[in-house]
Structure formats: C-alpha cells, structure tokens
C-alpha cells in the first residue's frame, strides 16, 4: 500500500535545477533507500518533503491526497517524521522535552511535566529503549541521542519516517541496535526512507531503492534484491566505473622510517601506538569513525598531549608542540578531514588560502611579504593541481568541494613538507575527482613524500596503501601488507576490526 508519494518534484535555485522531476514512492511496511552522490539532490528532496523548501513543480501525496507543506510543522502534522543529519537536540532540555518539543503537552497554560514524562516514556518503550525521560540530553551517548531523535520523529504520530544518514557517527554495534529498531517500525506498518552512503547497510536493511543523479531520479523504486552493488554504483555515477590503474611504485625498505611512533599514548586515550612511515611510502591508517585516528594525528601535531612513548622524526626523538613547530622544524603537514571548518578559509581569497603556510618563509624585513613571489607560488600550485578558478582573488567558499580539497592540500605542498598526514581526503567528493586524488596521492609518494593516509573508505585504502594499520578504540589492532586484492584485504581488515569480540561502548 502506498503511503506517501512525491511525484515529478522540481526545485529550482538561481542558476541551478536542484531537482528535476524526481519521483519517490514509499510503501507501508517497507524500508526504501535513497541513494545518490553528494550534490545529487538528496538533501534538497528531503527538505522539500519536510516543508523546508517549497517545490517549484510536482506533487506531494499522502494516502493519495495532495498535500502542501509550508513548514516542518505542517509536514509533521501530516504524519511525516524526520531524523535529520545534524544533531537536533536542545542541550539543557530533558530527553522527554526533546522528544515532545514539536507539541509540548500543557495543562492550564503550563507545560505539563507529568504528561511529558509519561508520553515520552511511551515512545521510548515503543522503541524498547531504556532511557529515563527526565535525563538531560547532554548525558546521552551519541547513539542514544540518535535513538532519542527517532523517538522524537515518531512522537508526531508519524507513519512515514525519514532517516537521513542515521549511522554517520555511530559504531557498527550501535548501528545494529538502530537497525533492530528500524525493523520493528517496519513491522508496525510504517514507511521508512533510509538515506545512507554506506551501501552495505542499504543492502542489509532496505527493500527498495531510488537513485538520484544530477537532480533526477535515474531509478525510482527498484527492488534491491534484483540489483548488485556494482549496478547501484554505476547508476549513482552514471557510467560504468572503471577501476583506477596506477603506475608501478616501489618502496625502498632499506631506507629508515622518517616518522616513527613507539609506544605512544595520548591524553585523549591512545595507548601503545607503534607506527612508522618511510619516505615514498603510503601507510594507511584504517578504522571506523571514533576509533581515534584523527585524534592521533592531532596529538602528533602538538594539539593534544602525548603522555607516553616517543615520536621520532628522521631518527631523532622529538617533542612537537604546535602545528607551526611541526611544519617549520620537521616538515610535517596535515590535511584535515574537516575541510570546511579546518581546511579552508571560506571567506578568504584563494591566494591566501594556499600561501598561509609559506608567509613564514617568504617574509622579509618587518614581516613584509613580497606579493609577486607569493602570487607566483600560488599560481604554480593552482596549475599543477588543475584547480579551476576565475581569479586568485576569488573567495575559497565559492569553489566546489573537490577544488576546496585541492586548496587544502596545496598549502602543504607549497610548504614543501616531507611527511604528509592526509585525513579522509575524498569524503564528499564525486567519484571522478576521487580517482584524480588517488592518482595525486600515489604520485606524491612516488616523488618521495612519506604519506600517512587516514581513511574509513576501504576501497580507497586498498587502492593506495602499501601497508594497512588498523586502529580501534585508540589502539593499533594489527598491521597488514597490502596486496591490492580487494576481497582478500577487506576480509582481513574487517576481521582485525572485529577481533576479540565486540567493541566496548
């Protein structure tokens, strides 16, 4: 039975058709996947369905009746519950108040706390969650917070539930709990839309799928049982995706490591971390979100305290105190995973974004920086990395994600680093640019850079790394030489991740 239908939805922004005739049908008692690359229009579609955007064309039908939503309130009233990608709880409020925020129960004009408690408890019980409605949400774990948000989405008596990347920041074990809840909601006859980047999850819990590409639905409501993983990827990408072929590259194992960690422990909880990288080598540091990989990188740069063990650079034990110290004295650079907040200065021109690491080197008397040298340097890297720009004074925020990532990387190349820590370089970047980045990283190593590649993208790791180091719960769980065979490697890595039973929460 069709509960909800979005038919031929069109949404136009100045200069771009974000949605161009998208159709999506949700059946009762079924989980429907919404797939598509970044920028394909998934979030725009969700915003249209939830009443944050008004569509410029097409119809929204609930139980076959045409609806028009002017605000999230109206879509909620119609029975559409949403769990958004961002955390949407109010700190300082209790679990119960957060669940019922959309319509706080009142008696005689005042908020009725007893009613909140009992009603919230009812929704939590529905999800079989053991959470006290009176607890402040600040005391919840991330997974608990996620589940509370589902309770919140249900509390509007919703029969249609949209889950936007619900597993993005939780561990596999916590995800399993979430999936049990989803199964239960499905059995109760609700229609669920599941948006995720993780194809494994989609194949695990979804029944049907809609794939978006460039604002259009290239597949609307196909049964997942009839599709293979590769077919889905090809639909998302829009062409048959060929495996990347990279030239030969050999690592000279006789060369001593340029960066070496011996028994390192940090204030954020790492212990006994041993790790080494040689010049010309790509070492992959693999782990799930929250395993402590970026934290390790930041501790190496002096942003967190190293409490045990030693860090050796070029054979000498060193104490790195700041990023500047790492760059200036040890030639270590770090390309952050958090591009928009830590990688680029969105409101500054491209020139400054790249030159930021070299002013220290270019400066003359009284700190004067000769503009000509600066521009020449920047232009050279803009060309080498194929960054498409209108002018070097263009603001970085006006560029695409891929080009921003190139800028984030370019500043470290300009700084002539010899050790480069690259953190999740291709998150949120389309498949084609992703291949280009892989070629670049490969190429940098071939030119002698030592690269520590942090990623939770298994194919990326297996394509690029010479050695794979697996981290879980802030500890190294094992190290494997990479033979670039996807099936074999992925099994070994997954086995390491899940070794010794379950992860501690």
């Amino acid at each position, binding site marked *: 039975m069709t509960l909800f239908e979005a038919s031929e939805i069109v949404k136009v922004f100045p200069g771009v058709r974000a949605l161009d005739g998208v159709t999506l049908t949700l059946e009762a008692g079924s989980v429907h996947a919404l797939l598509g690359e970044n920028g394909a229009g998934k979030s725009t579609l969700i915003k249209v369905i939830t009443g944050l955007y008004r569509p410029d064309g097409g119809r929204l039908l609930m139980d076959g009746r045409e609806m028009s939503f002017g605000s999230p309130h109206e879509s909620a009233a119609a029975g559409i519950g949403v769990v958004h990608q961002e955390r949407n709880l109010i700190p300082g409020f209790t679990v119960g108040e957060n669940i019922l925020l959309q319509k706080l129960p009142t008696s005689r004009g005042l908020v009725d706390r007893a009613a909140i408690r009992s009603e919230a408890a009812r929704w939590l019980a529905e999800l079989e969650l053991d959470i006290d409605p009176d607890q402040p949400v600040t005391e919840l774990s991330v997974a608990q917070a996620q589940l509370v948000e589902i309770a919140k989405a249900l509390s509007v008596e919703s029969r249609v539930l949209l889950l936007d990347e619900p597993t993005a920041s939780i561990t596999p074990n916590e995800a399993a709990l979430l999936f049990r809840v989803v199964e239960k909601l499905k059995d109760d006859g609700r229609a669920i839309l599941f948006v995720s980047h993780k194809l494994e999850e989609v194949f695990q819990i979804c029944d049907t799928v809609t794939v978006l590409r460039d604002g259009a639905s290239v597949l609307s409501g196909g049964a997942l049982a009839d599709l293979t993983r590769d077919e889905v990827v090809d639909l998302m990408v829009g062409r048959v995706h060929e495996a990347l072929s990279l030239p030969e590259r050999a690592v000279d194992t006789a060369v001593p490591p340029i960066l070496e960690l011996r028994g390192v422990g940090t204030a954020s909880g790492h212990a006994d971390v041993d790790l080494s990288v040689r010049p010309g080598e790509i070492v992959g540091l693999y782990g799930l979100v929250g395993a402590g990989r970026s934290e390790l990188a930041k501790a190496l740069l002096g942003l967190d305290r190293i409490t045990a063990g030693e860090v050796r650079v070029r054979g000498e034990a060193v104490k790195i105190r700041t990023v500047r110290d790492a760059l200036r004295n040890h030639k270590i650079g770090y390309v952050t995973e958090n591009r928009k907040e830590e990688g680029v*200065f*969105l409101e500054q021109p491209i020139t400054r974004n790249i030159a930021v690491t070299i002013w220290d080197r270019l400066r003359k008397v009284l700190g004067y920086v000769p503009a000509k040298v600066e521009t020449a340097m920047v232009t050279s890297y803009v060309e080498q990395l194929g960054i498409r720009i209108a002018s070097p004074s263009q603001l970085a925020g006006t560029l695409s994600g*891929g080009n921003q990532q190139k800028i984030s990387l370019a500043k470290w190349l300009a700084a002539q680093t010899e050790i480069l820590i690259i953190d999740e370089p291709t998150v949120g970047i389309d498949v084609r640019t992703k291949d280009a980045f892989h070629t670049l990283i490969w190429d940098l190593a071939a030119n002698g850079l030592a690269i520590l590649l942090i990623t939770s993208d298994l194919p990326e790791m297996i394509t690029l790394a010479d050695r794979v180091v697996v981290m879980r719960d802030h500890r190294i769980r094992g190290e494997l030489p990479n033979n670039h065979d996807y099936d074999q490697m992925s099994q070994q890595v997954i086995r390491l991740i899940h070794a010794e039973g379950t992860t501690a929460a």
Partner: protein
Amino acid sequence: MSAPVSSTATEALREDTPVEKPPRGTPWWANQRVGLLLLVVLLSALFGVLRPAFFNQQLVVFPLLRDIAMFTVVGLAQLCVLSIGHMNLAVGRMAAFSMMITGISYDLWHFTLYSGLLVGLVAGTAIGALAGWVIARTGVNSFVVTLALDFLLLGMIPLVYTSLTENAAFVTKPPGMRELRNFSLADVCIGNVCGSPAVPQLAIFAVIAMAVVGWIYARTRLGRELLMTGSSVRAAELSGIPTARRVIIAHAMSGCLAALAGFMLAVSTGSIKATIGEEFMLPSFLGPILGGTLLAGGFVSIWGTLLGTALTTVIRKGLDLLGVGLESLNIYLGLILLAALSTDRIRTLLSDRQAVASSSPPPPPKAAGSQEGER
C-alpha cells in the same frame, strides 16, 4: 621551488567542467567606501551652505579635523581586535589607564612630552596584551573578558587618581603639550610656503597610525595571519599560525592604539584625568563598522574607518552648528548607524540579486544569531 606534482597527476586533476564562476564582484555603487566619501562631501557642502561658519578654519575645521584624527585612532584600536573577530569593550578604559601612567610619568618622574607618550603606549600595549593573554589562555569570549577588564580598570583608576592627585587630575604639563594642541600646519613652513592653518599637527599621529596599521594588514605576514585567524581560528591553528600569539598581539595593538588616542585626547583637552576615554566605546565601533570592517573578523578597511569616523564627526559638528543640543545629537548618530547598516544590507541584497549566476543553492536562513556564534 620543488614541484612534487608530476604531469600525470596534473592531467588527472584537470577538470572538463567549466570554470566555476564566482558571484560577480560588487558593482561600484555598492562599494561602501565610495558611498561614504560621497556622503561626507555632500553633508559638508550642505552644512557649509546652511551655516557658512562651518568652513571657518580656526574655529570649526581645525577642531573637526582634530576630532576626526583622534576618533580614527580609536576606530583603529577597535579594528585590530575586530580583525580576529573579537571585541574590545575596554578600549576607552585602556586609554584612561595608559594616560594615568603617562600622567604619573609627567607628575612624579618629570618625563618629557614624548617619553611620557612612550610610557603610555607601553602601558596600553601591556594592558591590551594582558586582555589577549587571558582570552587566549582561557578561551573565554573576548566580550566578557574585556567587559570584566573594563570593570577592573573602572574601579582601579579613580583609586590611583585619588591617592596621587589633589583634584583627580594630573596637573603637570610637560613643555610642548600646549603647542601640540594649538599648532597647525601653518606653523610648519618650508621656505615661505606654509601649510594650511586648518590642519592640526596632532593629526600626524593619526596619519602615522593609519600608515602603520595599513602596512601591517596589507603587506605583512602578521596582518595576513591576523585576518586568517579572524576567518577561522581552527583552520588557522591547523595551518601553522600560532593563533594564541596572534590573539595576544591583536589585543596588544588595540591597547597601544587606545593609548595613542588617549594621548591625543589629553593633549587636545589639556588635562589628564580619570574620565579620559569614557566616550570612546560608541565611536570605536561606528568608524570601522560603517567603513566595512566585519564584526565577525577576517576583513578590515583602514580607509573605511577614516571615512566612517569622518562621517559621524562631520554630522556631529554640523548638527552642533545648526543648534541641535549636544546630547540629543546621539539620537541622530544612532539613527544614522541604523540607517547606514540597513541600507548596507539592502545594497548587499540588491547586488546579490544581480549576481544570481552563482551556482550554489542559497544558504539556509541564519537562525537566531549570537554575536560570535555564527561561525
């Protein structure tokens, strides 16, 4: 220059998509500084027509320029912290504190005019650096820290004055102070050619301050790093900028300029007392903000600060000549600030609408914005 990127990688990275067009540059009529300049000129002409006395060199233009010079320095003091997205609510009290030290140096240690100024500048720099240090060390919002510092100084300064002076003012005037107050460029002659009697010599301090601050922000590593810190502290830290030190330096610069402004005020009023700088807070924000400096950090305009200050000072003076009571002037100044910023908003909206070529969907409307919480 080593080039670690090989041509194969460059080839792979090249894109066949068209160049992403940035939103078109703002048209000239939307340029804030041009608008300000026109306004200043038009208003001056208007006041001149209504009250020809407005162009009286000694009685009007001379003190007008002296005020513009002083408030420009006050504006620059605020601009330095605005550049990193901070605020200095104690800008006036820092001036008072520095002048207290200067006063002590004249009164007790019999310093000369300029060595006293130097001591004051050092004191201002130190108190500013202290504010910066507390902010950098604790991570507490600059608004709160400078507000608390303002309290502290507000309490401390009168205590010192009452214990050291008879009438709550330092009376010793070093030689040269009176001359500095009254002399104009007419007193500077090269051969037979003398300068205009309308331009006070005191303005030279503002010119120097503008040149130095302008040089720092436009040409040096320090200035750029300050702006980057203002744009995004986290990105700056991760790009190897010592952000804590930059925060301290920005506040120290602010303190130093506040001290200079305090000195200019002390010279032009002829007395060093505890109330110096009490009127600085509003103009310190008016000049830079009207001139286009961003409250959120990352962009500053030195000329804009001068023009913004000039505009408010001309209006103040003009209305004064028209017989509007001195304190009710505030009504007009406040209205002008609101009007200027609202029209700025309208202008931005208009030029955005013209540049719809921008390819990205509009950002979601900003929610209940807090002063520094938007980034």
